[in-house]
C-alpha cells in the first residue's frame, strides 16, 4: 500500500505567532461549572485573538473565588493576588510604576461592592487604564454562601434567607464616577463576552465589566436571581456587540442608524448593533436612566452601556515621562550635586 507523506498541520497562531497554549493558565480549582471558569476561557480567547504579549499583562486580584482565577489563565503573565477589596490601589501603583503594562483586574461582587467599594469608587474616578472585571454571582463562595452587596432584593439563599437590602449597581456607579467603558455581560454568553473583552483590550481608560457568573454551589437554585436559569430568562441585551480589531481589515456592511460604530484607541472598531432604537452609549445620563429602568423592570440588561474614548486617563493627567518610572536610571532620578547645593544655600 502506497503511503503518501502527511504533514501535521502547523498549529494555529495569532499575529504574534503564539498558539493559544501560550495564553493558558494552571488547572482551575474552582467548582465544575463555575461561571468564573468560562470567563477565564473568554479572557484567554480575547488575549490570544488580540495578540497581546503575555509578559505585558499584569493580572491583578483581591480575595475570593473570583480573585483566585488569575492563576487559571495566562501563566506567562505577571500576577498579584493581593488583599480583600484592595486590588484597585495595588493596580494603580503598578500602573504608576510601569505605564506600559496592561492591567487586568479580576474581582468579585464581595471584593468590589462590599469590602472594596471605597477603592472601587476612587478607581473609577481616576480613569486609570485597566480592565476591571467583576465576576458577579451575588454571593460569597469561599465562606460558603452569604449574600454580597450585589444580591438582588428578594433573592433567596439556599438556606431560605431572603435578601432584604437593595443591590449596588456597579455599572451605574462606574458610569457616574468616571469609568470610560462600562458594560455588563453573562459568563454564559460566549459571543457577547468575547467581543466586549476584545473591545476592553482596545480601550485606553478604565473598563468596568460586570459579568454575571453564576455560583453553581451556593447560588444556582430556584429563588436566586443570579442563577444560570434566571439570568438566561431575564437577560435583555441592549445591543448585538461585535468587534473588529485594528489588524483585521474586514468591512462589514451595516445599515446607517442601526449600528453604532465606535473607533477605539488602537484603531479597532466596536460595533453595537442597536436592539433598542434610541440608545446612545456615549450619553452618560441615558445610560444611568436605562440602568435604573432595568432595575425597575426586573431585567438583567447586558451590553455596552457607556463608552467614552476621549476622556483623559490618569496617566495623562499625571504628565509622566513615557518610559516606565520603575526602570528610570539613577542619572534621571537623582538630581546632580549642584541641586543639593542650591537647596542648602536657600536654607542657610
Amino acid at each position, binding site marked *: 500500500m502506497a503511503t503518501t507523506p502527511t504533514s501535521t498541520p502547523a498549529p494555529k497562531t495569532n499575529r504574534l505567532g503564539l498558539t493559544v497554549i*501560550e495564553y493558558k493558565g494552571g488547572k482551575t480549582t474552582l467548582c465544575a461549572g463555575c461561571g468564573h471558569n468560562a470567563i477565564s476561557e473568554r479572557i484567554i480567547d480575547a488575549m490570544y485573538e488580540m495578540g497581546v*504579549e*503575555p*509578559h*505585558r499583562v*499584569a493580572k*491583578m486580584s483581591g480575595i475570593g473565588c473570583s480573585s483566585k482565577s*488569575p*492563576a487559571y489563565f495566562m*501563566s*506567562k*503573565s*505577571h*500576577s*498579584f*493576588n*493581593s*488583599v480583600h477589596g*484592595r486590588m*484597585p*490601589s*495595588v*493596580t*494603580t*501603583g*503598578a*500602573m*504608576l*510604576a*510601569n505605564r*506600559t*503594562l496592561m492591567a487586568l483586574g479580576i474581582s468579585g461582587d464581595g471584593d468590589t461592592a462590599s469590602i472594596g467599594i*471605597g*477603592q472601587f*469608587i*476612587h478607581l473609577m474616578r481616576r480613569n486609570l487604564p485597566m480592565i476591571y472585571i467583576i465576576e458577579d454571582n451575588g454571593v460569597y463562595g469561599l465562606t460558603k454562601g452569604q449574600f454580597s452587596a450585589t444580591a438582588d432584593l428578594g433573592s433567596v439563599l439556599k438556606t431560605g434567607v431572603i435578601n432584604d437590602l437593595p443591590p449596588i449597581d456597579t455599572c451605574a456607579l462606574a458610569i457616574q464616577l468616571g469609568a470610560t467603558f462600562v458594560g455588563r455581560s453573562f459568563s454564559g454568553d460566549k459571543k457577547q463576552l468575547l467581543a466586549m473583552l476584545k473591545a476592553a483590550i482596545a480601550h485606553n481608560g478604565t473598563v468596568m465589566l460586570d459579568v454575571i457568573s453564576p455560583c453553581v454551589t451556593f447560588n444556582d437554585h430556584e429563588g436566586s436571581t443570579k442563577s444560570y436559569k434566571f439570568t438566561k430568562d431575564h437577560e435583555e441585551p441592549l445591543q448585538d456587540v461585535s468587534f473588529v480589531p485594528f489588524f483585521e481589515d474586514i468591512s462589514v456592511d451595516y445599515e446607517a442608524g442601526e449600528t453604532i460604530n465606535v473607533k477605539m484607541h488602537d484603531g479597532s472598531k466596536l460595533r453595537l448593533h442597536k436592539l433598542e432604537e434610541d440608545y446612545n452609549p456615549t450619553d452618560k445620563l441615558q445610560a444611568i436612566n436605562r440602568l435604573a429602568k432595568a432595575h425597575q423592570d426586573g431585567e438583567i440588561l447586558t451590553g455596552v452601556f457607556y463608552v467614552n474614548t476621549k476622556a483623559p486617563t490618569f496617566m495623562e493627567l*499625571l*504628565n*509622566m*515621562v*513615557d518610559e*516606565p*518610572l*520603575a*526602570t*528610570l536610571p*539613577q542619572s*534621571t*532620578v*537623582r*538630581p546632580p*550635586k549642584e*541641586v*543639593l547645593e542650591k*537647596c*542648602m544655600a536657600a*536654607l*542657610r
Partner: protein
Amino acid sequence: MATTDIAVQNIGSGKEGQRVINDWSLQVATVNGSGSQSANTVILRTIFQMGVPVSGKNLFPSNIAGLPTWYTIRANKNGYIARKKEIDFVVAMNPETAVEDVKSLGAGAAVLYDEPLNLRAVRNDLAFYSVPFDKIVASVCPDAKLRKLVKNMIYPGVLAFLLGFDMAEMEKAIRRQFGKKQKAADLNVNAAKAGYDFAVSHLEKHDPFWIERMDENRGKIIIDGNAAAALGCMFAGVTVVTWYPITPSSSLVESLIDYMKKYRIGPDGKSTFAIVQAEDELAAIGMVLGAAWAGARSMTATAGPGISLMAEFTGLGYYVEVPAVIWDIQRVGPSTGLPTRTAQGDISFVAGLSHGDTKHIMLFPSRPEECFSMAGEAFDLAEQFQTPVFVLSDLDLGMNNWMADSFEYPTKPINRGKVLSKEDLDRLGGFARYKDVDGDGIGYRTLPGVDHPAGAWFARGSGHNEKSQYSERPDDYVNNLDRLNRKFQTARSFVPKPELVANGTSKIGVIAYGTSHWAMTESRDQLKKEYDFDIDYLRLRAFPFTKEVHEFIASHDRVYIVDQNRDGQMRDLLKLDLDPSQVTKLRSVRHYNGLPIDARSITDEIISQEGR
C-alpha cells in the same frame, strides 16, 4: 482650657545682678492663627544669624484658629537644643492664658505683655515690660484690616532691645520671611522697628537675659525634619509617592511635591515621578506596594492612625516580599490622641505590624541630617531586603525647625537589590522567586513587563512555595517562614549601626533614640556637672538591633532605655532580643506628656532610680 500641661515651668535661671548670656528660653503665648508664626521664625533666624545655637518648638493645638498656642525658642551657647523645661522669658499676647502663663514662671523670669492684660498685678518677683501693642500698630499700619497680623511683628522689635538682638539681622530675617512680597516685608520691618523704638524710649531693662554674637552656626542650615526627609527621598530617587494627609506627616509630602516639581521634571517638561493623594491610608500603602512590585522606588508618609490602617498591607508586603518605604511621623496616641503633640509611641506596633509572624526594619532619625541620609538608606534597604522599611520620625523632629549641617550628597550608587533582567533570564533559563540562592534569605525577583517567557511569577499573600506557587504544605510554609527570619537576621548587619556617643567610662549606660538624643546629651552633662556621675551612652539608630547594641548592654551593669512613650516600648523590644541574663539590666526612663522630652526630666529620673 487648662494650660498647665503646656506651661509647666520651673525656676527661671535668672539671678539678680548677673548677666545670663546665650542661655535662656523664651516662650511666646499667642492665639492660634494670629500670624505669630512669622514673628517667631524671625526671632529664631535672628538668633541663628547671630551665630548662637538655637532651637524653636511650636506647641500648637489641633485647631486652625482660636485656641492657645505657644512657641518656645531656646538660645544656648553649649549647643543644647532640646526643649528646656524652665522658661526664662515670656511674651504674653493671649488674654486667655496670660495669667496662667505668668503664674507658672519661676522667680526672676521676665514677662513682656500686651498692656491691657495688666499682668504686673499678678506677681511681684518677675521683671515686667508692658507694651501698648494696639497703639504702636496703629501708628505703623494705616490699614486697620492688616493690623491683627502686623501687630505680632512688634514684639520681636521690643525683644531686640531687651535681649540685644541686632536689628540689621532682624530686618534681614524679616525680608527673608516675606520673600518677594516687598510691601508686606516693609510693613513688618516697620512694625519691628516701631517696637524697638518704643522699647528704647519707654522700657528700662531689668532682667538678666542677653544675647551676644557667637560663631557657632557657620555653614549650618535651618530646616524641619519633614523637609529634610523630602529632600532625602528626592535624592534617593523616589519615583512613586502615594499618601493621605495626616498631621504631622503632611508637610513631608508637601515639601516633596515642591522639590520634585522644581528638580525632577525632565527636559520635555514631563515628570520623572508620580505623586498621588490617595483616598485613605489603605489605598496609599496599596499603591506603594503595587508600584514597588512593578519596580518603582515607592513610599508613603503617615502617622499613627495611618499606620493602624496600613497593618494588613504591611503584612502583604512582608510576605510577598515587596519593598516599601513608610515614614511614620509619630504623634501622641492611642486613637486620635493628641494629633499635634509628639511621642515615640508606635515602636512596638510597627516592629511587628500585621497579623501572623511579621517583623519589620525600622530606622530612627534624630536630626534633619539623618532624615535626609536615612531616606536613602531606607530605600536601599527596602530594595535590598525586598520588604517594607519604616522610618520612625516624630512630630518634634518633623514639624519643628532645627539647625543642621548642610546635607552631604549621596556618594553610594542606588541599590535596586536582586532584580533579574531579560539577559539574566536568558542565561539562567528561569528562576524560583523565593529560593534562597545566596544563603542570605533574599530571593531574586523579576519586574512585571520583563520580556521573557520565564519571567513571570505569581505574587500572592496566600501560602506559597519557592516557586511562588500556591501551597498549603506544612514544609513549604515552615521553610518560607524560616527563610524570612533568616533574611531579617541578615538585615542586622546592614541596618545603620548605633552611635556610641560615650563608651568605656562607666559601668552604667543609657540607650536613647530619635529626638531624645538632644535631651540625653544635655542630661549627661547635667549628671556629670551636678552629680559627678558619668554615664555611657549609645544612640540607637535601627531595628533589628545590631551586635553593637548587644555588646553595649553586655558590657554595662545597668542600662537605662529612654523612651518617649508610657510603656517603655524600645525597652520591651530589647528585652525580646536579649539573652535572658541581660534582661534584668534594663531600666526605663519614660516621658509621655506630649511635649518634647527635656534633659531635666531624664536627669531627675536617672538620679531617682540610682538612689543618689
